[in-house]
């Protein structure tokens, strides 16, 4: 059942490319890349129960880990992507090591502070990062083996492949003993410890995977959409994945994709009618909190399909 669902989700994403207009193809590519960020965030928040307000730092670490070497060192895109992942993994490991000494509200504040420090560092070193203004990655630097990833078709399927890898990785991870232990930690940390699990080590590993996936999303965003800017390291980008995961359903495999798509189109459609589109998002969150507190996928699981992963 679960496997069929995963195949259906991924097949639908492939088929959508041929059905919808170019405008929506572009949107869906962006949604899939951002959904990787949400998938990564969901591992830490939805499955492990750790509420981070500093994930923009990991997203930016991946983004700048890829963009700066391309821009200043002329590194090839594949090498730069590996650097983006390594950068996000290193940052998440270091921040995790320090921040996991705290719990609850203190963990939120510490992660937020680290992310703000990272954001300010990007502004401070503006001569390389170009700060808020950011910089464009040239089309010539977005070609791998003759495939131009600035073109909509190539970009869509690159986003799809990356999303599919992240989605299936988390679906698999959650079914392993490691994944079950993360859920046990979320449910009752003390009990997990009493069953002999090293809770700190498990949380640190969750932080590493979550941060690296967030970084992969940042690197993919910079590469596929050709832009890196400090805005992506701002607090807003730490709150967005939380929002997407809450809307879609924390602790569900498909929730991050649903939440990202829902929020993206809510803003897209409402911005045609009003400039106060964030007010509409806020209203949607209030309504969801009242009528679907488990998020869209979470409510579907609770009310209709109990086996939904």
């Amino acid at each position, binding site marked *: 059942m679960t496997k069929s669902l995963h195949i259906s989700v991924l097949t639908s994403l492939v088929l959508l490319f041929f059905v919808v207009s170019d405008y929506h193809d572009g949107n869906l590519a962006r949604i899939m890349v951002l959904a990787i960020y949400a998938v990564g965030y969901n591992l830490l928040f939805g499955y492990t129960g750790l509420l981070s307000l500093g994930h923009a730092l990991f997203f930016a670490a991946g983004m700048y880990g890829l963009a700066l070497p391309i821009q200043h060192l002329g590194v090839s895109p594949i090498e730069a992507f590996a650097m983006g992942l390594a950068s996000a993994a290193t940052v998440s490991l270091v921040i995790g090591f320090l921040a996991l000494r705290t719990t609850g509200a203190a963990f939120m504040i510490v992660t937020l502070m680290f992310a703000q420090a990272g954001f300010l560092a990007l502004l401070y070193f503006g001569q390389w990062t170009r700060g808020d203004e950011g910089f464009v990655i040239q089309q010539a630097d977005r070609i791998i083996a003759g495939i131009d990833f600035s073109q909509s078709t190539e970009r869509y399927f690159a986003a799809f492949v990356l999303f599919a890898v992240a989605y299936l990785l988390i679906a698999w991870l959650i079914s392993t003993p490691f994944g*079950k232990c993360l859920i046990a930690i979320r*449910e009752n940390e003390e009990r997990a410890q*009493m*069953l002999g699990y090293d*809770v700190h080590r498990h949380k640190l590993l969750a932080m590493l995977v979550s941060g690296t996936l967030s970084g992969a999303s940042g690197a993919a965003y910079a590469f596929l959409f050709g832009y890196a800017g400090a805005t992506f390291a701002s607090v807003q980008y730490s709150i967005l994945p939380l929002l997407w995961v809450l809307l879609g359903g924390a*602790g569900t495999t498909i929730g991050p994709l649903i939440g990202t798509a829902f929020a993206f189109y809510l803003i897209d459609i409402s911005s045609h009618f009003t400039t106060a589109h964030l007010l509409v998002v806020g209203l949607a969150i209030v309504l969801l909190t009242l009528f679907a507190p488990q998020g869209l996928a979470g409510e579907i699981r609770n009310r209709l399909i109990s086996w939904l992963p």
Partner: protein
Amino acid sequence: MLILAHQSMLEVSNLHAGYGKVRVLFGLNFNVKGGEVHCLLGRNGAGKSTALKAIMGLVKTTTGSIKFEDSELTHLPAHDIPKQRIGLIPQGRRLFSELTVAENLRVGLMTSDTPERQEIRVFELFPRLQERLQQKAGTLSGGEQQMLAVARALCLEPKLLLLDEPTEGLQPTMVALITDAISQLKNDGVAILLVEQHVDTVISVADRVTFVDNGRTVASLKANEFEDNRDIFSTYLGV
């Protein structure tokens, strides 16, 4: 399991412990012998649950010693203590409520050296759990949740099991099931340290009782001394 009865398995000496600056235990002393049911009795706030938490490393020990089979536990990190084959069933059960019964047991069995044997043992003891495998733990009845809590602790094949008020809030039939399970575990050679408020339950299963008041050991009785010393139960439990 080869357990030498009458040999001290757990030795708690002059234990001082507490939560931050709040001290709860002020020199607690008792021991648990292999294969016995030893009960800690005392009023609410006497320090019984804190003693269990201190044994499991969940509460910081300031001075004193906790020895399990001659190994000092006070210096071990909390997650290493269950590996000594000590299991805790906390007050209020504290299951992984969003996981199914099967998943709860799986989480317990993942750290076991003999998962198949323990699984069989668990279902022998609590056949009802086998009928509830795919049910979420949070939706079980109170008695079934307690069975699952005991079952999950048994996954580690403990030599010593710490139970914190296992019959709290259960209906009489469930209390009987849990006390039967305690007796069966004792017969299997598992030493049990029980914190319990129901005097009748204590009298029916305990081999020894240590009375705790204000974080100190104040009296100790063997099973054959219970009837002649009912007044001690009244003094320290107010019953």
